[in-house]
């Protein structure tokens, strides 16, 4: 573990250097401690793949004491256990037609059919490593190695809400229409971020996710609320 200042008011806690599940378990354990601690001037905590950013209010920050509080708090932190005990959430995903604009190209890159991609992508359990980038965006690990695919060379200006994408060894869901460079292989009709709900994101880091394939017709009926 390395703790350093990433700006005049943010501490960066480095717990690894990759997107592995081992790094994720260390992040989860450290995040749980930070979240329940009372550290003066702390304003937010941003966990990611293998690091955590702790943001302080620059107007009331006492840097030396903040740094030593965080160091002391995390001194003997271990990794969380595996995800067997975490929630399993099933997300319906349509891997067809306009829901999956890049699935044919992804299949071609891996010399398989679009149906193979869907079967493979929905055949495993993923772990939510963290939520970041935009509200509710799920970064998930566990993508089968045969589906590891580089990002698009040119990102899309607008990715439809609910799009399920893959980029290198990650898979993710875009809850809002945003720009994005991941390859889109499906779309879920489920709302993954509701600002008025508490909590606004129904999923949290450490949750397990399984994608359940649905037809285009089913996608539209869920989307229209005829479920």
């Amino acid at each position: 573990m390395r703790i350093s200042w990433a700006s005049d008011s943010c501490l960066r806690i480095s717990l690894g250097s990759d997107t592995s599940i081992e790094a994720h378990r260390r992040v989860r354990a450290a995040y749980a401690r930070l979240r329940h601690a009372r550290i003066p001037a702390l304003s937010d905590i941003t966990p990611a793949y293998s690091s955590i950013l702790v943001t302080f209010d620059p107007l009331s920050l006492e840097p030396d004491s903040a740094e030593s509080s965080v160091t002391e708090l995390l001194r003997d932190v271990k990794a969380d256990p595996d995800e067997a005990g975490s929630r399993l959430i099933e997300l319906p995903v349509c891997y067809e037609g306009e829901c999956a604009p890049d699935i044919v190209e992804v299949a071609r890159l891996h010399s398989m059919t679009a149906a193979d991609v869907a079967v493979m992508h929905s055949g495993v359990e993923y772990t939510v490593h963290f939520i970041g980038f935009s509200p509710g965006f799920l970064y998930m690990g566990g993508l089968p190695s045969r589906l590891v695919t580089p990002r698009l060379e040119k990102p899309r200006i607008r990715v439809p809400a609910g799009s399920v994408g893959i980029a290198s060894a990650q898979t993710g869901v875009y809850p809002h229409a945003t720009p994005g460079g991941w390859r889109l292989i499906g779309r879920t009709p489920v709302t993954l971020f509701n600002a008025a709900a508490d909590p606004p994101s129904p999923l949290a880091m450490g949750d397990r996710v399984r994608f359940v394939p649905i037809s285009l017709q089913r996608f539209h009926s869920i989307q229209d609320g005829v479920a």
Partner: protein
Amino acid sequence: MGLLRVVDSGMLTTVQDLGRSGFAAMGVPRGGAADALSLRIGNRLVGNADDSPALEMTLTGGTLVFDDSTLVSLAGGETAALIEREDELPRLLGPGAAERIQAGEMLRVGPIKTGARTYLCIAGGVRVPPVMGSASTLLSCGFGGYFGRALRRDDQIEFGSAPPRFRERALSEAGRALERDNLKRRTIRVVPGAHEDSFDKKSIAAFLSLPFTVSVKSDRMGLRLDGPPIKSLVGGRMVSEGMPPGAIEITESGQPIILMPDGPTTGGYPVIACVASVDLPVLGQLRPRESIRFTRITLAEARRLIRERELTLDREVPRP
């Protein structure tokens, strides 16, 4: 309590306060005023708490009609603003001043001449339902503020009641100097970024010595800078991680992007430097096509500067 009606919303007017905290782990950015210093000054001038919601007007100003008497102030970008009523000569609402506005009067905020954003603060604050503890509008996701969107013609927004003991007042000379520095600063002070070692000495020297132009593709999420491409040793992306306010990421094409309040909570481009807290408000006042430079300071200097700025602010524009 009263209502204000939007006659002309200008280019982009949104409700903003000092943003939301505690939701970064759900990917929710802090948001809030792009120039938090001016919002705080404007709020103090009308007797509000620093984090009262106000209207952030961008580049072109806007026009509003008030149905009840209250106290208003404009802080931030310099503009000519007039309070008008029928059959009377208009009154000027100067920058950094609080003025009484009467029921039925119209406030016309002209184009911003210096800076990019001006804050219309109203005694008692603009009233919108808080979302995750803040009134700030997050345009990219359509929540917060006024129905999650920018104001449009004929929108009607509630505002609070003026505290009775508050009256017209104006900024002191030193208070105005604080605002002027914020509006006119073109050398942005930065501290080393988390990935400074992903850049060779030559790239860092280029970043710290050459001018950059604010791209027209900039917004409340990020300021994109045009200039000499800055090459990182990692080339493109790294493992995504949390981004501090004012982080300066370098894209694979070598373009710097300064993250703004509505920007992503995490990012995967290497961060060459981070804007010092004291200069974060300056970013909100940069106009497209303006030229800026960066200068490096130490963490200790950055922290000393923000403390000193707070002392000046509290002395010149005391909290109500």
